[in-house]
């Protein structure tokens, strides 16, 4: 199905861009007039995915992160965050609550758990050596129709 609206941005995997990514997504979905709770959930999930790409995907090297947001009918939004980093060998283990590959770094190991709980759908595609794509969906309670 064709989205009603779509935006793409690409940025370096610098940690300062974690807030940029959150704000970019929030600004784009503002047209749907989301509630503060919805906005906060989405920003948190985006922050987790982008942080994963920076910390784990690129391991603090600089690469590109690709962010796509699509708006569909009835307030459905689809967010894809893709990197060309190292990929995840075992996605299932990586997604377990409290699992972290960097236990010394004060990472709580909750990134995927947050994405899963705060969004309606989460799909992770990864190939070792090629990168990772996280696709998340959320249905917003529609208060205003998107301009089509």
């Amino acid at each position, binding site marked *: 199905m064709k989205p009603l609206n779509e935006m793409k941005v690409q940025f370096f995997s610098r940690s300062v861009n974690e807030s940029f990514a959150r704000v970019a997504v929030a600004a784009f979905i503002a047209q749907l007039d989301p509630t503060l709770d919805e906005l*906060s959930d989405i920003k948190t999930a985006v922050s987790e995915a982008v942080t994963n790409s920076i910390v784990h995907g690129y391991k603090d090297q600089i690469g590109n992160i690709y962010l796509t947001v699509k708006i569909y009918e009835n307030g459905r939004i689809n967010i894809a965050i893709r990197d060309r980093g190292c990929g995840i060998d075992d996605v299932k283990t990586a997604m377990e609550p409290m699992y972290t590959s960097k236990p010394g770094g004060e990472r*709580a190991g909750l990134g995927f758990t947050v994405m899963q709980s705060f969004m309606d759908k989460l799909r992770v595609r990864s190939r070792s050596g090629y990168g990772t794509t996280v696709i998340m969906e959320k249905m917003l309670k529609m208060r205003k129709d998107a301009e089509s």
Partner: protein
Amino acid sequence: MALKTESDAHILTVFLEGEIDHHIAKSIREEIDMSIERVHPATLALDFGEVTFMDSSGIGLVMGRYREMKQLNGSVTVKNAPASIRKVMRLAGLDKLAHIE
């Protein structure tokens, strides 16, 4: 970031502010740890009243401070966390480690 702190004989209160993510967590951690080192409080109170955003990096931050305070036989209290931040904390089970007011 220069965080506002307040301490009496037992409690060190750190007033956090703005957005807490992975980018900023390290400098916050270093500042809190310097204050803990200096004051050796029985309780570390983290005041989230002026925090506008927090992801799981903030959970790591609180969990790390909990471990540190435990070594000093102390405790951690979380104060004034807005609803959206309490939601992340509950998800992480932080209420089992820290006293959430």
